[in-house]
């Protein structure tokens, strides 16, 4: 049987950066994925936004570390991963949203985040041509940004291989055997493996993997559709998140990536539960009407491609990350709720520290947000 220090199930947003962190520290790591190459499930569906301006310590801390990793990647390793410090903005068109955003900003300032309130006129400079009617201003966090999920995961992948990580693609985990409170064997269609630690980073499949060990984790994927346009010269700055709900959708967001292409995505309401990846005729008209109303300038921009993917959701919108209490050598890194791409690199380091027993007080505090044994009754703000 092939033995590894760590086996990671899932070569996605979390699995690959985790393999990078582990292999960099000479930990003998194997990543197993049923698909053919890294990031082929939902990582490649991410639109690429990366922000630290969340509402809780855990995500803020992890994302800040992610931003450091994304933004310094090219100077450290040479590959362009499309990092752009274009910032995030949440424009407010009603008093309640303005108040909520401003209240949250107080908290975010306590965490040392760079986020400000800009006036409608200032916002019109950041997003020239934005609908000014009823606009009350917007948050703007200039240190947030974006990168290409496609380039980033491949950069992490090749670098982790250089550090010694192994990947087995086209291999589906079909059983996980255990003795007492330890996993003794990971069985795929092709091989049997054993490892000191097993990490469930299976994204959409997290629940099915957990069931193989007899565990129940509350991760339910719901579907979102996204799209990308032709590239044009840069014409606006930050990610724009329109939080206002509409009759058939919740928020949607868009930004212009490093190539000049506008990437966008909408959250359907009510959520569409399930893993179906086939495009529906509903998405484009639904999102286009809202985007054109908010930003008429987008009308002449050609849509190039659309796609559908999932947010592996937890009941409260926070990821589930940490050691299992039932199985001593199992670590969960699941339920990223659509933020796997931005949390991945930071989480990878954090999980490596769990495995290496190197957690400091801040790390422990951050992990509280993601505690697998919390009661899940809370709700994430501003997802």
């Amino acid at each position, binding site marked *: 049987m092939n033995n590894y220090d760590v086996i990671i199930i899932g070569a996605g947003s979390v699995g690959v950066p985790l393999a990078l962190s582990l292999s960099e520290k000479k930990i003998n790591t194997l990543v197993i994925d049923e698909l053919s190459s890294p990031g082929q499930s939902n990582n490649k569906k991410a639109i690429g936004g990366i922000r630290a301006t969340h509402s809780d310590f855990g995500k803020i801390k992890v994302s800040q570390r992610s931003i450091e990793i994304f933004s310094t990647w090219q100077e450290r390793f040479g590959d362009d991963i499309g990092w752009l410090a274009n910032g995030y903005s949440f424009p407010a068109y009603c008093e309640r949203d303005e108040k909520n955003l401003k209240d949250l900003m107080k908290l975010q300032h306590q965490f040392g985040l760079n986020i400000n309130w800009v006036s409608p006129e200032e916002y019109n400079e950041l997003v020239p041509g934005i609908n000014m009617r009823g606009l009350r201003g917007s948050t703007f966090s200039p240190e947030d940004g974006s990168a290409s999920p496609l380039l980033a995961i491949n950069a992490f992948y090749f670098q982790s291989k250089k550090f010694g990580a192994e990947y087995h693609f086209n291999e589906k985990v079909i059983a996980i055997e255990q003795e007492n409170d330890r996993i003794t064997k990971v069985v795929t269609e092709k091989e049997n493996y054993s490892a000191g630690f097993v990490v469930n980073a299976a994204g959409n499949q997290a629940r099915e993997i957990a069931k193989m060990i007899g565990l129940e984790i509350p991760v339910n994927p719901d579907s979102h559709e996204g799209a990308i346009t032709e590239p044009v010269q840069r014409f606006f700055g930050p990610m724009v998140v329109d939080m206002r709900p509409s009759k058939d959708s919740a928020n949607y967001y868009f930004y212009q990536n490093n190539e000049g292409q506008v990437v966008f995505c909408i959250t359907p309401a009510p959520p569409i539960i399930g893993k179906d990846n086939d495009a529906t005729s509903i998405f484009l008209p639904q999102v286009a009407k809202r985007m054109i109303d908010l930003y008429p*300038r987008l009308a002449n921009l050609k849509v190039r491609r659309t*796609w559908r993917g999932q947010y592996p959701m937890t009941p409260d919108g926070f990821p589930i990350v940490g050691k299992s209490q039932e199985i001593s050598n199992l670590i969960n890194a699941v339920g990223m709720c659509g933020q796997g791409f931005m949390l991945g690199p930071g989480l990878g380091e954090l999980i490596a520290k769990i495995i290496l027993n190197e957690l400091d007080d801040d790390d422990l505090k951050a992990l509280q947000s993601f505690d697998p044994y919390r009661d899940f009754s809370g709700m994430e703000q501003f997802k």
Partner: protein
Amino acid sequence: MSQNRIKEHPILPIPDRENVRFFWNKKPLLAKKGEVISSALFANGIKIFGHHPKDNSAQGIFCANGQCAKCTVIANAKPVKSCMTLVKENMDVKSVEGLPKLPNTEKHEINDIEILEFDVLIIGGGPAGLSAAVQLGEHNIRTLIVDDKNELGGKLVLQTHKFFGSVEDSYAGTRGNDIGKMLAEKVRKLNSLTVWRNSIALYVYKDKKVGILKNDVYKLIKPKIILNAAGAREKFLRFKGNALAGIYGAGAFQTLVNRDLVRPTKRLFIVGGGNVGLIAGYHALQAGIEVVGLVEALPKCGGYKVHADKLKRLGVPIYTSHTIKQAHGEETIESVTICKIDKNFQEIPNTDKTFSCDTLLIAVGLEPVNEFALEAEKAGMKVFSAGDAKEIAEASSAMFNGKIAGLQVARELRKDIEDIPSSWYEKAEILKSEPGKTVDYQNIENNSKVFPVIHCLQEIPCNPCSTICPTNSVKIKGDPITGLPYFEGKCIGCGKCVAICPGLAITLVDYRKNEEFPTVTLPYELKNHKIEKKDQIECVDIDGNILGEYKVKRVIDSPANNRTQLIQAEVPANIAKKIASFHIQPDEVSRPEIKNITKIDDEEMVCLCERVTAKEVRKLIKKGVHDMNQIKAITRAGMGPCGAKTCDNLIKQLFREEGISQEKIVENTRRPVFVEVPLGKFAGGGDDE
């Protein structure tokens, strides 16, 4: 002002169109009313429409079909595909240098998207789609036909040559563009048929609706059955310098020349000896363009021998067992180097020849546009395919299998409709048959004083000669459509077989007046190279070998002969039966030249949209990458506007060359939308009336 327009054409009428003024980078130019921007620019000698943001390479026409975005220009401040956008009075057109600038828009209309139900949706109004529509219309089934062009007929519109196939089933002997008009007229008269022209099918969604951009307005169609008759797309080729401006497909060329009556080139070189390449060469000659040569990698052209013979006889050299080695040029192609290859397609050293040319056509095969059918199947819809979208074959075959598919669809919806006769399926097989082997001349030693010499020595599905003979003396050996014709019986010297043969492969030899110097009658379709009485013509045999110069005795130009002239000359009896035609293109045109090559662009490009080289992709394959999605993620190959329609094949070739078998390759995921559309259209903007 001198414009690169076709002012006379042996087949196509030249309409008198109003001039429209527009501006190109602030300079005033003239266009013809109702033409697309790209053709207006070509007519004014402008072939470079901008420069790519990645490497500043020159961009111009490529597909001329709205599928890629290589021809993007800025028209009245908006980035548009110039091949699909009509030029308008005073339009301000600018080249795109790097990334285009998106104009500001104050306000944009927002409406609900209309959803319409039909029994049948036919995607594509070409030979197959229209033939299917006629069947559905005759059975009174509510059918919508969408076609992305302004004129119905698909590629028929571009075909100035007479068609092969059988007279009774596929209009053989009639010119393609005329067949297109006839089919369109039939469709127009049937009440249950709705036609949307200028309407692009974008995707078949999981919820069984099809997105259509109708005249720039987005609509959703909910059909019970889809019939995919979207035709074919051309394959591209990998060679050094393949991304220079002026290198494009034969389809784009035919669009410019035969639809828009623009002369996009002075000196043309062609890659590919299939029917598409051969016919494009013939169309070029009809348009008054010099055809420098044609290369074919195989030892023999894959297209009909009669098409190849026609070109050779007119003076166009065909280089079989040759390949294109490299295209040279600063921004647009200036010359091309070809070389000989062995039976394993490997270059034979020291066989290079370089020719100057300003355009290179790639005609190396077609593949079905099958994405609509695949998506419809995935969505669980009933879907049929016809024409090239089903299987690549001649248009005559497309018309016949379109007819079958139309009736099949009708029978799905209405059980009372009669069975399809099994003879139809047999005929469909015959019409798509590949050319057979070449044989010797048949029955030309006979005692008649006047008789046809049939220079058609390869079995192809074609029978007009035997159908038209008033004395039934042109007979067919074996199968009544694909068999070889031969003369047996009585010839009255009417010349009808000479005039109708689509391959221009029948001559008439008449000894009645003079046994020593019989009169030979030769078919001729290139009125733009005018032949008159008393002209000396350089007569050639079937392969283009010169037999001697003889004086023209008579030129018959009868309306009954549908724009095929009959040229008569008195020639010595010993060569009379050998003469198949005469040279019109001087040898100088096709002479190789040795001159300084300006700049050698030795990149082999696989993805033209995102400018990804073979080298970049090969490096990843060598690293063990077998997932085309990963190649796309890293290099952007396939991420451009055309949606991997061009690079997909080329990347698969690279895998083969690296010894990776097909089953190890993970295919690119297909995603909506198949053609780029402005976001505002999905918000319900625009007016389709």
